């Protein structure tokens, strides 16, 4: 079962990386950019008996290692593609 984890800084946490990228884009003429925040994307293929079991497993991975919940929120979504990295 293939799942995608999106990790974002929590609202209110200053995203210095996002601000730097935003400034760079503004310098390229994208002054209409209102806000930009940088996050992480992790794709996982996990063996699971059911969709719920797979999600639960990945949720556990997020809590134990993938996200630091002091700073970050995460969401888990299904991937429809057959392979994680299609050739």
């Amino acid at each position, binding site marked *: 079962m293939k799942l995608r984890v999106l990790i974002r800084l929590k609202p209110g946490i200053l995203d*210095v*990386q996002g601000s*730097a990228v935003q400034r760079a884009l503004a310098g390229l003429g994208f002054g209409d950019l209102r806000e930009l925040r940088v996050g992480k994307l992790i794709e996982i293929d996990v063996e699971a008996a059911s969709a719920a079991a797979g999600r639960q497993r990945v949720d556990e991975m997020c809590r134990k*290692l*993938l996200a*630091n919940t*002091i*700073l970050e929120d995460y969401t888990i979504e299904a991937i429809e593609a057959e392979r994680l990295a299609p050739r």
Partner: protein
Amino acid sequence: MRFGVVVFPGTWSDCDFHYVISEVIRQPVKYIWHRDRNLADLDCVVLPGGFSYGDYLRAGAVAGKSPVVEALRDFVANGGYVLGSCNGFQILCEAGMLPGVLMRNECLQYRCQSTNLLVENVETPFTRGLRAGQVLTMPISHGEGKYYADVPTLAALKARQGIVFRYATADGQVVKAANPNGSVENIAGVVNETGTVLGLMPHPERAAETAMGGTDGLLLFQSLLGTLVEDGTFLKR
């Protein structure tokens, strides 16, 4: 006092700590590989600076779940001392052994410079040879040293005197201009509830001989030794 210096793939301050412990403070010391779990014959474990496991995912995140760090929990429960500097501090936070987390520097620069540290808590084994309000000089060298904790965590940390060092001016003023990385309330180092686990971003091992430009880092080791060896070799406050 028997020391262990932990080596992860990507650690870089291990040799410096080993040198200072063996050659400057002249105590028995050995390297501990990151897969080792046996810490039985040690009194103090040092988590040095560097980029453990490449700092992939987040600084210290993977190391925070490594076998040696898992073994540290029992080690601490049995009265062992842990000193985490730089990446070691990040690892202790990621492992949940210290509160809070270290983020990308607010200035986005890697900062390698000398800092002045105001000593706030002198009731820990690492600082008991110091005076409250004393200012120490130690270098920092990091890109992710901005200490952050949410409001309740910060309040609890302050209530139990968990803040040990703050970035300050040479005369001890805690001001924004003296904050190299945007840490909340200029926090540079914190201890756990029993005072036996200290994490700090500065490098005491790089301020341990006059040839290095200063010896203030030695004071942490000398304080620590004083808790076990009451021979009066360090200046009591």
